[in-house]
């Protein structure tokens, strides 16, 4: 009978240690990829139906430009906000799980961050393709607009940049919230949102009392889509670093 002592594992390379956590987030892609696309699909189907109802009620002459207003619609915004939910779910679910598998918090966070960047790439690509189809088919044959809202600029490149940056922002903001949740549970999240709320109210008060709203509006216009979105990267970076620092000292606990 041969007896082999379970030898100490040959240390996995740092990259492998990180990418296996990334893969963990896609092992069952339902939460990270399946559900968001399905919800987006349902919203799209709903929009198409409404557009078709309007379109078919109008005479051919009235139809031209009738759905122009849809480019101000925000029906695809949901997917950005939803990425925050995805990030919160992904971390709160896999963090205690991965630590039981002997993953360090550092490797866990870096691997998860890589997964979030991958998600941002995937979703930006998806939206870009859909926007291209939308343009090519003249708004799905009815002049409607769902995937190329006016807020993200006119050119495809501008849209790609804006969407990618926004996806990153919501994913990493979600990661920071998830880190608060993992570390302090509900109490922490409540305090966190009170703090965020207080900061926002404080900013509003500051702008109101100093009569700066006009100036803010003006500088936003000056910044343009690209400039404004670029500033979001600062918030994204702050969230990402905060998430890391918070998770670094977090301990996995059983269900709240």
């Amino acid at each position, binding site marked *: 009978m041969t*007896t082999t*002592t379970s030898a*100490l594992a040959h240390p*996995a390379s740092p990259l492998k240690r990180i990418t296996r956590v990334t893969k963990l987030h896609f092992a069952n892609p339902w939460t990270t990829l399946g559900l968001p696309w399905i919800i987006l699909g349902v919203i799209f189907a709903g929009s198409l139906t409404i557009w078709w109802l309007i379109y078919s009620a109008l005479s051919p002459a009235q139809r031209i430009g009738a759905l122009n207003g849809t480019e101000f619609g925000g029906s695809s915004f949901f997917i950005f906000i939803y990425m925050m939910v995805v990030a919160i779910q992904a971390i709160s679910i896999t963090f205690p799980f991965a630590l*039981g598998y*002997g*993953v360090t918090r550092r*490797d866990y966070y870096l691997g998860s961050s890589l997964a979030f960047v991958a998600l941002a790439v995937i979703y930006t690509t998806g939206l870009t393709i859909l926007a291209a189809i939308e343009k090519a088919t003249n708004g799905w044959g009815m002049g409607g607009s769902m995937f190329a809202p006016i807020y993200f600029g006119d050119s495809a490149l501008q849209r790609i940049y804006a969407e990618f940056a926004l996806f990153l922002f919501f994913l990493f903001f979600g990661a920071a919230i998830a880190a608060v949740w993992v570390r302090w549970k509900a109490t922490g999240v409540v305090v966190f949102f009170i703090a965020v709320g207080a900061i926002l109210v404080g900013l509003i008060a500051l702008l109101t009392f100093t009569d700066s709203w006009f100036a803010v509006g003006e500088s936003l216009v000056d910044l343009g889509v690209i400039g404004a979105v670029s500033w979001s990267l600062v918030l994204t970076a702050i969230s990402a670093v905060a998430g890391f620092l918070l998770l670094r000292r977090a301990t996995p606990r059983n*269900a709240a």
Partner: protein
Amino acid sequence: MTPTIEVTNLSKRFGKVTAVDDVSFTVAENTICGLLGRNGAGKTTLMQLLTGQQFASGGTISLFGQTPVENAKVLQNTCFIKESQRYPEDFRPKDVFKTAPWFFANWDQEFADRLIADFRLPLDRRIKKLSRGQLSSIGVIVGLASRAPLTFFDEPYLGLDAVAREIFYDRLLEDYAHHPRTVILSTHLIDEVADLLEHVLVIDEGKLLINEDAETLRSRATNVVGTKTAVDTFVGDREVLHRDGIGGLSSVTVAGLSESERRDAKAAGLELSPVSLQQLIIQLTRTETKEFEASA
């Protein structure tokens, strides 16, 4: 040789509660070690400290000669299966078994497949639809098939029926014989695991009460049964751990006996029998708690 686990003056406080109180012990390489104690005794906290999931308030931990905290070199050799291990909700068991091999260098898929069949685990059902016992068997399978050089099982059998628990013990022992490794098994079903254990740690209210190899521990006490007078004469001033009696019969648990003492007892017409690990631990923890209270 460096012990696999070396703990010195380890403490963990949560506010005013001291969950682990100045604990020191070592566990040699390739041992099955029982971590026993009542609920809330500090077993889980101790294992979380050992795996770097909790941060110590004081003292040092060394696994394979290094600190485990955020140390990938050490931690990738560990597997920690918790009592109520949570899995990603949308996972099915097959997703767990797909991902686990990425993290454990010694993972044995054939062994995992055999265990899946043994436990009759449905692979395609969503985790949230599994029964408590099925959930526990996932943890047991991952813990065994991972063959991590240092495996922690924290009461892994919640909801497992007697047959499934027996399978767990059998497979653990069988696989351990072929692939020796260090296993820390926390449980309060002491009698069930008694035969598996080579080393025993008993923890109560955060303090380490017993740290002995199982053989020595078993020889620490013997049951002496006979007529009340004969037993009383034999016992004399000996340390008595436990005393029971019905009518003229008496049964007394005494601390370890030498060979000649055993002969004397037999000559006096007394019956000697070993004390089960569970009885022994209950009795030792009782007395040691009393001693502790007396000295406090």
